[in-house]
């Protein structure tokens, strides 16, 4: 009783202090619970695991019953994401096991390889293996095709250059020939007799017998090229004589833009009617005409 009273008095006296203490305690508890949330304890009963291993272990069995081989060196792969490194180390581990395993198997007096004439069902069926082979072939073919395409592309690039050069050469040749012809024409027109003789020979050597005769006649009429009369010349100009005729009467950008014949005044005048809308002059019907006579 006295104890409780004492406590009561104590608490009365130092109410403030106790409040502070409880607050501290709560804080401590909270921080503790926070910590336990952060650092979860993971179970790892090593002794129990070892005991269990001892219990289930079959180490006293012959090796040939167990067929397990532990690699001489632990696998160390810096990054598990590195496929090449990882698979290589797996391969090496397996290779070591295969070599050691063969020795052990032969030591135990058990055949390792199957005899050559031993045929049995395989894990992967024939159709599965055929599919795999087909896939490999397709892959190879794909690679070959890609290489060929690459080669072709390069050839085409090179070929284009050659073609362009050829075209340029041909154009140059054509240009040179045209120049030569035009110069010949000029000289012919100039009517220089002395020179004409030379050209006659030149053109003769080109080998156009028909032209030769006409030229000969022209020369006989005073060495000048015979021109048609003025009217014919104008008509030739207008309707075309020589040169291409196709599309001559078609409108061109210039002709349609040409407004020289258009008169705004006439267009606005009340008299003006578009030719397409101009009515025909009314000819009376037959009966009317007959009645008139």
């Amino acid at each position: 009783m006295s104890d409780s009273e004492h406590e009561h008095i104590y608490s009365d006296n130092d109410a403030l202090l106790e409040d502070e203490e409880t607050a501290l305690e709560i804080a401590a508890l909270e921080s503790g619970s926070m910590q336990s949330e952060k650092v979860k304890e993971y179970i790892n009963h090593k002794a129990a695991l070892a005991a269990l291993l001892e219990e289930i272990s079959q180490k006293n069995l012959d090796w040939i019953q167990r067929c397990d081989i532990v690699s001489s060196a632990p696998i160390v792969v810096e990054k598990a994401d590195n496929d090449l490194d990882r698979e290589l180390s797996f391969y090496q581990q397996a290779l070591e096991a295969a070599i050691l395993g063969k020795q052990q198997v032969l030591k135990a007096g058990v055949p390792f390889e199957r005899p050559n004439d031993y045929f049995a069902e395989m894990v992967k069926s024939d159709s599965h293996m055929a599919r795999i082979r087909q896939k490999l072939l397709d892959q190879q073919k794909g690679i070959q095709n890609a290489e060929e395409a690459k080669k072709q592309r390069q050839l085409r690039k090179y070929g284009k250059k050659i073609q362009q050069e050829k075209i340029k050469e041909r154009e140059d040749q054509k240009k040179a020939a045209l120049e030569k012809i035009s110069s010949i024409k000029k000289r012919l027109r100039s009517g220089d007799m002395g020179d004409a003789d030379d050209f006659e020979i030149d053109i003769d050597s080109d080998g156009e017998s028909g032209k030769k005769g006409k030229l000969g006649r022209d020369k006989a009429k005073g060495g000048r090229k015979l021109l048609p009369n003025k009217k014919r010349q104008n008509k030739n100009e207008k309707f075309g004589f020589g040169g291409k005729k196709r599309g001559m009467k078609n409108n061109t950008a210039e002709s349609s833009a040409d407004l020289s014949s258009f008169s705004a005044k006439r267009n606005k005048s009340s008299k003006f009617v578009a030719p397409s809308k101009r009515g025909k002059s009314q000819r009376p019907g037959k009966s009317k005409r007959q009645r008139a006579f």
Partner: protein
Amino acid sequence: MATLYKTAKSEFMDVDDLIEEKEKLTNIKHRVLMVASRGSTYRHRHLLNDLEALLPHSKKEAKIEAKKDMELLNELAEIHNCNNVFYFETRKHTDLYMWISRAPSGPSVKFQVQNLHTMDELKMTGNCLKGSRPILSFDANFDSEPHLQLLKEIFTQTFGVPKGARKSKPFFDHVFTFSVVDGRIWFRNFQIAEKDSTTGGDLAKDDKPTLIEIGPRFVLNPIRIFEGSFGGPTLYENPKFISPNVIRANILRQKAAKHAGRMNNATERENRSKENPLPVDPLKDVFE
């Protein structure tokens, strides 16, 4: 047993000794029951089929729904006379968990199966006899920790084909490798090619054989080791294991955080503009 007794009696041998000897030979009659849970996808099913093809001492059972009542699996194993169980548990049609258990008494291990590639989808050129025995290759890392040692023992007893198992063939033409990388167990399956790949003839004696991968590939991430079969006290818990659910949730949360951040910025901006209103222009009404 009767014949045992007869032979023992006839030769005046100690019966118990004889039985013990016989048991020692037959003790390794491991049989593995393979069960998938409901809701497993085709890839999980294909992995199961691959393992069944590779392990002749296995027995496949129909899919079961045993999410709550795992004891059922022990009974199933007893019915099929199996002492090991592979239980492939699929969650949400995406995550595959693999239980390996020694059936009646334990221990059992729960793994998450990651980076799964079945034999069918891997276009690998290796092939081996159906039912030939594998050599089990373990990484030296397995001896570093007690839980890994236990896992190694469990793997040898389940993946190792016992000598003279019913459908097995007495030859060795492939290697199962188990390696510890990144705290997880990586499984690979290689064919041992003893023939010269170009000529097809036998290899010279000193030459190393070449290995060709057969498949499947998978990675086992241990989650827990239990003392009993499909239950019992936990002996080991992987501190590195993060549940795929948590990972997915975190990804979603990150995405959500982006949106929340944008909304937060917008409200902050609004508040700021309310707190700092623009000063009133004294010349605003001059021309009106």
